[in-house]
């Protein structure tokens, strides 16, 4: 960083779309001195971590409030129980699946039904995981850790379009969302019944809006638009006939139009 003034020989101006050439120059210069000092991280990494975290904040508020209602639901009579709810939020970290399992249990359903419902909902992380695989750097353990921070929202925030994802933005957003989810669950378990219904605050409307906002910049090509329209159509057509979760998994099939020759 200290040497990154003036020219930067060998730096590629198109290091990353959206960054000034100067920033990429800074990055290269800093890369060589990354071990000096305490808080040395290449600027784009810190930038993307922060960008992911900041973008995730409004969602983290919504996610946290849903965490509260998950906690309330679980701690109620016949629910999952207080401690299991917190453990589940910290380890499973997938709101819809946890709600599915908790409501099956609360509704008197058995363990196999609860497990099946939750895992079916989470099956969408298979195609989502495949889509980020190429973008996650580092060793196996690091990729494993990053993969656990993948949720719909962090994945969408990290998307750069054309199948590329920024791993640091993913981690920044994922960490903020994870904290909000776990904290919300604890608040709900401890005594959230006094708190209001998230739906009254319009928080459930925040999610489709976010996904649409993140979808819009992806629609650069005719194929992407076709895949989006087809994906939405498949999902909507299946909602009445399949358990929740299946429509989203099935919508992944819309991406198969990528096999058609241009």
């Amino acid at each position, binding site marked *: 960083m200290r040497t990154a003034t003036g020219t930067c020989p060998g730096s590629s101006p198109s290091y990353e779309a959206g960054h000034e050439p100067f920033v990429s120059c800074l990055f290269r210069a800093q890369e060589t001195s990354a071990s000096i000092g305490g808080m040395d991280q290449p600027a784009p990494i810190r930038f993307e971590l922060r960008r992911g975290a900041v973008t995730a904040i*409004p969602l983290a508020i919504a996610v946290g409030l849903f965490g509260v209602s998950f906690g309330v639901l679980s701690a109620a009579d016949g629910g*999952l129980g207080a401690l*299991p709810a917190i*453990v589940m939020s910290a380890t499973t970290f*997938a709101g819809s699946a*946890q709600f599915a*399992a908790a409501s099956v249990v609360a509704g008197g359903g058995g*363990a196999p039904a*609860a*497990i099946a419902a*939750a*895992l079916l909902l*989470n099956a969408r*992380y*298979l*195609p989502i*995981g*495949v*889509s*980020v*695989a*190429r973008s*996650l750097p580092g060793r*196996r353990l690091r990729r*494993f850790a990053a*993969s*656990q921070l993948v949720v719909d929202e962090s994945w969408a925030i990290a998307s750069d379009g*054309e*199948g590329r994802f920024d791993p640091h933005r993913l981690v920044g957003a994922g960490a903020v969302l994870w904290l909000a989810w776990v904290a919300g669950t604890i608040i709900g378990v401890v005594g959230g019944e006094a708190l209001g219904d998230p739906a*009254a605050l*319009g928080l459930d*409307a*925040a*999610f*489709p*809006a*976010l996904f*649409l*906002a993140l*979808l*819009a910049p*992806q629609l650069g090509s005719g194929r*992407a638009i076709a895949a*989006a329209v087809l*994906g*939405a159509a498949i*999902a*909507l057509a299946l*909602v009445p*006939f*399949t358990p*929740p979760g299946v*429509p989203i998994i099935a*919508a*992944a*099939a*819309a*991406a198969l139009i*990528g*096999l058609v020759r241009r």
Partner: protein
Amino acid sequence: MIVLAVALGTIVIKASGPVVLGGRPLPPRVQGVVALLAPALLAALVATTAFGSGQQLVIDARAAGLAVAAVAITLRAPVLLVVVLAAAVAAVIRLVGA
């Protein structure tokens, strides 16, 4: 039991893509499919979170929020504003309707 099974299953599902595939490049045809996974799944998420209610399709305050969000996105509003607007519209509609 449920908690452990769901947690383990989810961890395996989430990790399988990144850990098994890793940084290996995919053949171009597969890449073409993977590139379209994001728009397809995002659109499905938009559709189901806006209109799904259990196994039913409903048009409620969320749809109005989504419409306002769509307008805001066309006007190039920042993501944060889009999300807050949608939630506010849905909240106001519910307040008036209730």
